């Protein structure tokens, strides 16, 4: 009752000024922070890809990326990321679809979601330890298969420290990530569509072919690209698992930052540029496809 009159005069000026400056002062730290610790460091790094050791402009570093060992690294990285992305997408889709539309008991869905939240965050060094304890030479599954069935997966050509081993390990965070990002899209599939197509006499196969997949494909493709970028940038799991014996791009870059293994700092910047281009492009495509996929979720 008494406040408006007493305080009306004095704070007006400061509020007037605060109204103008306040918002900008409030967001200023964010932009300064983003510039200093995200945009500029990455930007300067990428500029370095186009400079020679004297700081002059050159395209030589980009051309040097065509070195056999670097091409091999990129190819291996792309193969592992693609395998774990496609595998993660298919299995994640199957799991999410089964839990949401598969007629399973009600408790399965929230359990799967909570678990996915945990497992998609359980990456890095500890994940590598887990897989060594499971599928390493003395791992539980390896020993079990050998003792019970007399089947030695290592004599059969499996090795946790190469392509399939790393892919299998990456799936542990790729599948849950797929479940998490695909769930809204699957929720967007309306029951009425199923009923409508059934009324018109469609088979299960036709329903999938003409309704479910056409509606879901942007989300499926987009999520697969996100998974691809996610695997492409990962360092810790591969490093702890293979101890840099598997020369994927992030591991090569890691070694380069530590001790200039390429004997050319600027080539390191070009390598970083190559990585950013691949993960950036995947993400841009993901965002575009997601926008398309969300049309059905309203």
């Amino acid at each position, binding site marked *: 009752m008494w406040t408006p009159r007493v*305080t009306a005069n004095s704070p007006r000026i400061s509020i007037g000024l605060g109204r103008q400056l306040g918002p900008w002062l409030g967001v200023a730290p*964010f932009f300064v922070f983003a510039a200093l*610790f*995200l945009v500029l460091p990455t930007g300067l790094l990428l500029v370095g890809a186009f400079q020679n050791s004297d700081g002059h402009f050159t395209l030589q570093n980009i051309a040097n990326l065509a070195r056999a060992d670097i091409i091999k690294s990129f190819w291996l990285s792309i193969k592992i990321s693609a395998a774990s992305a496609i595998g993660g997408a298919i*299995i994640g889709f199957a799991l999410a679809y089964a839990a949401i539309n598969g007629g399973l008991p009600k408790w399965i869905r929230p359990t799967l979601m909570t678990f996915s939240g945990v497992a998609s*965050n359980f990456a890095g060094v500890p994940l590598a330890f887990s897989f060594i304890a499971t599928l390493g030479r003395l791992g539980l599954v390896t020993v079990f298969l050998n003792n019970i069935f007399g089947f030695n997966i290592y004599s059969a050509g499996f090795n946790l420290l190469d392509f399939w081993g790393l892919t299998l390990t990456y799936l542990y965070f790729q599948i849950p990530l797929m479940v998490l990002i695909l769930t809204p899209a699957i929720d967007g599939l309306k029951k009425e569509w199923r009923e409508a197509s059934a009324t018109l006499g469609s088979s299960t196969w036709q329903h999938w072919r003409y309704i479910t997949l056409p509606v879901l494909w942007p989300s499926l493709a987009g999520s697969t690209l996100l998974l691809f970028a996610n695997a492409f940038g990962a360092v810790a799991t591969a490093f702890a698992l293979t101890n840099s014996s598997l020369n994927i791009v992030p591991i090569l870059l890691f070694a380069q930052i530590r001790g200039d293994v390429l004997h050319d700092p600027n080539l390191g910047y070009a390598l970083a540029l190559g990585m950013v281009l691949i993960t950036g492009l995947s993400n841009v495509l993901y965002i575009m496809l997601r926008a398309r996929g969300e049309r059905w979720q309203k």
Partner: protein
Amino acid sequence: MTKKIVSWIAFLFGALYFLLPLIATFEFSLRLKRNEYSFEAYRIVFADSTFQAAFLYSLVLAFVTIVIGILIVVPTAYWVQLRLPKLRPIVEFITLLPLVIPAIIIVFGYIRMYNTSSILPLTQTSIGTDTLLSLGYVALALPYMYRAVETGLRTIDVATLTEASESLGAGWVTTMWKVILPNIKSAILSGAFLTFATVIGEFTFASLLNRPTFGPYLQLIGAKRAYEPAALAVITFLITWACMGLIQLAGNTRKIAGDKS
């Protein structure tokens, strides 16, 4: 009927793939003593002073990261919501950058930009490197923190609360601290726990900036020992699990509070 069978097969296959490594890790961590199961590996880990130091170091880092993250994100999300909606696309784009640019690229950029011969040689001193590391973690956690806070702000009426607070004579700092912050406490908490889960075992930044945190410690033990890494993996998994549980708990209190009003 076939649909149900296929669903069960998918579910059981998934459960097997996800539970086996956990069971195997736990079993492996108990195998340190010959011919009997024991918690010896855990005892050794907890008694290791390097472990204690590394874990404590990461705890402090995570705490500092969360505080700085809140100080940067909350005012930004608040003003974008209230007065500067035009900035929303730019701010959202920036907060998503850490998901697009791999962590190894960001830290490589830091090493180039803040090296000993640069204008701001943060990597020259250990306190400088610590600052750089925790600011880097703020950047890594930006997507999670921003989204959590933004979701929280959407559920309250920011404009009315601000007007009410200003008409009582509060400046914007008071409004932020005494009105907005308490109202989005649960959102901030879930952002904080996600940040914690991201930071606590982080390897790439810490290793390349040469800081003895929990992530590089894990890697070092993994290269040297057999059973202790499994015990550490179990411990880390429990920490991640606890963080996710706390996030759900924070979300539930919001729901309960929402039901009351």
